[in-house]
């Protein structure tokens, strides 16, 4: 007798799964029922116009907002993965201490001075280890924030426009570290407005518009033939503006 049951091939859990993610603050719905399953282990870029909800989405993935819905990484709920996550913000909060003390503050037990020195060297701050962190330039502060995040040995790294307004040297250092982290198996989710950077780094793109993910596609396809009208408009530098009911164009 031949078994006619179809062969069941177990599917690996998605790297990132989001079910019904909504965010309401002060009676405004800012994220609207986001559904998402990503099997991409590489770098996920989150793109979209200002106000699309990118930063809120990223903060939601880091447990910083009172969301409705479920988020899981590799099949594990957010409550279990938070300790394995790190996030770098556009404006990092640095302690009013030295560069070195900012690193030791974040150091998990078992980390060594050599590890800290190595990371500071990678972000070109080893020479400034004993300087007050808050006197660093913007680019240096952001590099320190990234080094501090990497010191926690995250399995998931969330980056909210970490290179906005930085000089090309700092951008290059940060991109190199992000790529190295991804190559080492860290899941990276990255918000950026920089299309050139997105082309350089992204494996896949989530495109957001008005609190929703309107496109989720491999990076090469996103940049060559985006599906959504919103993404096409964004990539061609157009602004999608709702029709005005009053006032003149000059206003």
């Amino acid at each position, binding site marked *: 007798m031949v078994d006619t049951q179809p062969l069941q091939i177990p599917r690996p859990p998605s790297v990132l799964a989001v079910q019904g993610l909504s965010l309401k603050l002060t009676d405004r719905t800012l994220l609207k029922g986001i559904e998402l399953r990503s099997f991409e282990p590489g770098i996920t870029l989150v793109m979209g116009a200002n106000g699309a909800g990118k930063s809120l989405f990223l903060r939601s993935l880091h447990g910083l907002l009172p969301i409705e819905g479920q988020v899981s990484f590799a099949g594990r709920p957010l409550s279990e993965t*938070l300790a394995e996550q790190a996030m770098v913000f556009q404006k990092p909060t640095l*302690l009013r201490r030295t560069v070195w003390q900012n690193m030791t503050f974040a150091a998990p037990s078992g980390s060594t001075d050599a590890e800290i020195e190595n990371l500071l060297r990678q972000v070109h701050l080893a020479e400034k280890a004993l300087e007050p962190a808050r006197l660093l330039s913007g680019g240096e502060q952001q590099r320190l924030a990234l080094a501090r995040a990497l010191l926690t040995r995250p399995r998931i790294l969330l980056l909210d426009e970490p290179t906005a307004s930085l000089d090309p040297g700092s951008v290059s250092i940060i991109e190199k570290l992000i790529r190295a982290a991804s190559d080492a198996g860290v899941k990276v989710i990255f918000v950026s407005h920089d299309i050139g950077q997105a082309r350089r780094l992204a494996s896949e793109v989530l495109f957001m518009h008005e609190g929703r993910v309107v496109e989720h596609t491999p990076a090469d396809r996103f940049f060559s033939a985006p599906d959504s009208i919103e993404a096409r408009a964004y990539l061609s530098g157009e602004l999608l503006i709702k029709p005005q009911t009053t006032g003149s164009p000059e206003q």
Partner: protein
Amino acid sequence: MRKMKTPAVLAALMATSLFSIGSMADSIIVQSTTSTKNSGLYDYLLPLVEADTGVTVNVVAVGTGQAIKNAERCDGDVLLVHAKASEEKFVASGYGVSRSDLMYNDFILVGPADDPAGISGSSSVSDSLEKIAVKQAPFASRGDDSGTHKAELRLWKSTAVNPADSSGSWYRETGSGMGATLNVAVGMGAYAMTDRATWTKFGNKADFKILVEGDTRLFNQYGIILVNPAKCPDVKAEAGQKFIDWMISETGQGAIANYKVAGDQLFFPNAK
């Protein structure tokens, strides 16, 4: 001469006129912090005070900073607040006769059960605040110059972070009382510092829980002061002093210790 009364004082007096049996001479106004009212302590204590002393107490519950300002304007006979440095300044400036320690409780840090900043169980409040700041986890502050707000700012000063740099970002000042601030915190998944008594009585905890407690810097001392009749001639000094004497007496201190919510003692008497 006693100056124009605030609407809150007038409301308290009107309420008293409906229910008070004692003479107006034995009816006093206490300018108070909110935690003693929100916790239900006055509802428990004041009938005992009236039965023992004949003094009817009308409470105006505002933040400590506002209560002190009201007392400086001669609105009130007794001040009961929790900001020792400000209380001592109030007395040194001649607005108060003398200050007595009354009781203490403690502050706690509360937050969502998921605890994104990872502070649960920490024995150091300054370390916990720094973790919240570095993580940019939302933090709801009273921001109203109350005793709790002042205590919170003192704690931030012991850290390497100035939360004012992030005002409106992860650090949100509500400009409201403790109950309203806790509601905001629950609504936005934010950490908050609160006195334990208000937290115990708070009815909208959702999944929030106490995450940090026990650090000696979270100690919260309450003081009681008679407003100085030399500055404010309308002060009912005799009735006010009767109230203070009862509160710091063995009877009053025992009553404070006996006040419990859900089996928990909220205030710990320590008058000397």
